[in-house]
């Protein structure tokens, strides 16, 4: 097991190098000159002289590889440069916005786990009954509904029509409910579908037939089915964490939630490249880290993996 974890950790290194390189290339895709943009957003006329000075300041006159290396080394230290807009360190902006996003992601993660796991268990136990059909019907509709539309409808119904919850911002504890539910609803359908199909498939595995043939109780057989679905469940739900954090972009914009999703969209409109760069890099790292964690946890759960490595 130890060897597997070490191996898995080592395999992440080339991946991280690739990611950072790609993130860096993405930033350099931009058609406009960052130096010019930096000047413009600070309302300085981009004369040739000023641009050249800015280029030097931003290190744009160096070679591509050199720039990449400086960027990576400073990124590792948490230094993503300063925002073009307010000249504050990017890392501060992100650290400020992160808690709000994490709270939102956590709330919807809990909703997703509770609803998708229980719904798929119910569907498996009562396969092909009316309740299974109803849930599947809802899942089908949920998959086709745009998440932001659900958000708007919820906002209209609960905040405007019933005036129960705040429409936007982060003013009280109640403000997290609507964005949290909206975010969760966008993902629940996918997970219910995935988990239910996995469990139902496990139901027709040979070991279930044998458990029946040796006269085991229904409860014990169900327990075995669920245990065998656990790996898929953990993988799916584990990977939902980074997806949720990345997926907050839309929800945060609907509900004016002061998180990193809104920060990044604002940065896109303002051509604030350092912020975008930092956001992309951090998200990718988060994704890789979660992936790693999920892999290790599932490997620990499965005896076949445990012995093999």
């Amino acid at each position, binding site marked *: 097991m130890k060897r597997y974890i070490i191996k898995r950790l080592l395999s992440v290194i080339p991946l991280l190098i690739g990611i950072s390189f790609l993130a860096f290339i993405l930033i350099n895709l931009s058609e406009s000159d960052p130096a010019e943009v930096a000047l413009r957003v600070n309302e300085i006329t981009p004369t040739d002289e000023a641009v050249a000075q800015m280029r030097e300041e931003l290190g744009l006159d160096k070679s591509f590889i050199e720039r990449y290396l400086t960027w990576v080394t400073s990124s590792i230290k948490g230094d993503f440069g300063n925002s073009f807009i307010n000249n504050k360190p990017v890392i501060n902006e992100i650290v400020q916005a992160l808690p709000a996003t994490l709270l939102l992601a956590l709330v919807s993660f809990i909703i997703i786990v509770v609803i998708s796991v229980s719904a798929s268990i119910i569907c498996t136990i009562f396969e092909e009954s009316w309740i299974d059909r109803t849930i599947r019907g809802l899942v089908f509709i949920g998959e*086709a509904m*745009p998440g932001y539309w659900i958000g708007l409808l919820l906002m209209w119904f609960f905040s*405007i029509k019933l005036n129960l919850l705040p429409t936007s911002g982060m003013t009280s504890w109640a403000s997290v409910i609507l964005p949290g539910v909206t975010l969760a609803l966008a993902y629940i359908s996918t997970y219910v579908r995935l988990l239910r199909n996995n469990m139902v498939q496990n139901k027709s595995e040979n070991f279930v037939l044998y458990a029946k043939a040796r006269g085991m109780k229904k409860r014990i057989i169900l327990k075995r089915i669920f245990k065998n679905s656990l790996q898929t469940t953990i993988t799916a739900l584990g990977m939902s964490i980074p997806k949720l954090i990345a997926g907050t972009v839309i929800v945060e914009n609907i509900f004016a939630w002061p998180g990193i999703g809104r920060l990044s969209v604002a940065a*896109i409109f303002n051509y604030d490249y350092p912020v975008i760069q930092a*956001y992309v890099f951090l998200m990718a790292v988060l*994704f890789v880290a979660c992936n790693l964690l999920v892999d290790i946890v599932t490997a620990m759960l499965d005896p076949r993996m445990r012995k093999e490595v």
Partner: protein
Amino acid sequence: MGTLNKLIQNRFAMICIIFLVTVVLTGFFAPWLAPHNPVDVNVKEKLAGISTTYPMGTDQLGRCILSRLLYGIRTTVLIAFITMAATIIIGTLIGGIAGLFRGKIDEIIMRICDIFMSFPSEVMILAIIGMMGPGITNIIIASIIAKWAWYTRMIRSIVIKYTDKNYIQFARVSGFSRWHIFRKHIMPNATGEIAVLATLDIGSVILMISALSFLGLGVQAPTPEWGMMLSEAKNVMIIHPGLMLPPGIAILFVVAAFNFLGDSLQDAYNVKHRKRWR
């Protein structure tokens, strides 16, 4: 063949096909079918209710909602089709090469895919649009970059699944060239599966494009687009919530139809996929 027959027998799938064909045709003939010019502003008639001149009313600028909806097909569905087609072509090309030749090339392609897939697609698209600026071309390019790796991988695994089949092994033993095997045996069989993949996924492409437009990062005003219509409706939500319905329902129906069609296609293709019980 059997697949087509099975699809025809599935009445609901047929309804989906008819619906989608109608939608596409309506989009194509929008200039003749729409009662008004979708970008014509008429402030006097703003937020009008349902009437014979405006079958679905007007928005906050007095533009005909039905016309905007019909023209919206052109943008939303067309962009989705273009994105999908380009992604599939790239995926088939690269995935086909990886699956067919295996070895070093395969290894390299797969590692590159790994890197691309380490970015959540939302983040990837945001990054690219952030760098290149909002706009239709840019969201198409961004979606392709965000999706190609996944398709390459799926198509590679489909190709590999077929190369393991005995009839391909037989063809190899008989001394056929790789190209012949790919053209005669793999492509005809894989096309169906790729079509299923595409149909299942096009709904999510539509959702993504409309979401980007909703954020103001995709299609720019005044071009009619469903996501953007929702974004505009949001601003007048308090006084006129009804505006949220037409574009939302339109997206829901089109995406649902594609998803259902994809599911039915998959069922029709995989005979073995039928419920097994031992």
